[in-house]
């Protein structure tokens, strides 16, 4: 019996260490890296949606959430950019990677309510075990990755360098999409995303 308890304690310790190592390993994917595919539930209609990196389309993957004031401050800007660029064939995917077992505000029902209230022009996907955020190496919300039609990451970092339009010096996401749509390389492909730390599911 005593041996069994020791085994249980060791097993719990091993699981704990694994979670820490996993978090520490999650490096932000670099420009030029292959974007991971994902298949996640869209909170708006409850259906699974698949993102195939090599589908030929330019794509924007935005890690965002319901609770972060900084992510919420960028929400109108992301909606504005999605409306503008979706007309030019760019696909937007908003992903909520926060742990909904600890934060009720991040449940599928609350995500759906927010998407409907703000009239999201893109799917709002639940990354329930934070695995997609880990795969991309997202750190914060909001954190943006632009993936080209062949599945290569061409931009990663912030939406803009400030949430306040009057303070903006660089419009990172918009500039990257404009360049790629015009067949040019992205001049400033890697920027420093700022925001709330992702509430990892562990």
């Amino acid at each position, binding site marked *: 019996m005593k041996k069994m308890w020791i085994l249980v304690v060791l097993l719990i310790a091993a699981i704990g260490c694994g979670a820490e190592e996993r978090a520490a390993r999650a490096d932000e994917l670099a420009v030029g890296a292959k974007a991971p595919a994902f298949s996640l539930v869209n909170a708006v209609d409850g259906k699974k949606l698949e993102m195939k990196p090599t589908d030929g389309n330019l794509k924007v993957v935005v890690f965002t959430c319901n609770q972060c004031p*900084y992510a919420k401050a960028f929400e109108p800007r992301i909606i504005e950019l999605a409306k503008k660029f979706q007309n030019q064939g760019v696909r937007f995917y908003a992903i909520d990677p926060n742990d909904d077992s600890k934060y009720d505000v991040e449940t599928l029902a609350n995500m759906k309510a927010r998407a409907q209230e703000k009239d999201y022009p893109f799917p709002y996907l639940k990354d329930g075990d934070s695995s997609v955020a880990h795969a991309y190496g997202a750190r914060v919300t909001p954190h943006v990755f632009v993936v080209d039609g062949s599945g290569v990451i061409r931009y990663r970092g912030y939406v803009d360098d*400030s*949430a306040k339009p009057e303070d903006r*010096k660089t419009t990172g996401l918009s500039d990257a999409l404009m360049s790629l749509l015009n067949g040019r390389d992205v001049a400033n492909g890697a920027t*420093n995303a*700022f925001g709330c730390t992702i509430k990892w599911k562990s």
Partner: protein
Amino acid sequence: MRKFARFAVTFLSFAALHAHAADLRAMINPAEIASVFPVAAKLRVVNVWALWCAPCVAEIPDFRAMDAAFGSEVAFAGVNMDDMLPDASAKPVKAFLDKQKITYPNVYYKGNADSLGKYLNFNGSLPFTIVYDSKGKELWRQDGRIDREQMIAKLRDLLRRKS
């Protein structure tokens, strides 16, 4: 006598209200931050935080305790990022610092977020803490919430090496 009592009550209320008035200074240029530190301090600690960041708020009492414990050898300063949000104001930040009885200086940063990130070389997630020596050389940094006991041990170790 009644007049004196009224005066005493007014005086004591005023004194109580201002006993822990926080030192909050608005700044736009990241390079100005160093100016809040006293020259004599052997170590300078910069804690980047915001009211909207729960782990940041949770660790403020730890910084208050360390500030009290280390005296003048270690100087603490907060850099508040609330102004990154539209329609933000320094008022709730000041009220929070007053309530927390924070006496070390805090900067209400009004500049561009990315400029500060580049200046302090931090990856954008709050909270964030850096320890510098008196000449501004970085000695240690913590990404995310600090562990108070671990940080106290680190500061003691750094002080030992400086003396």
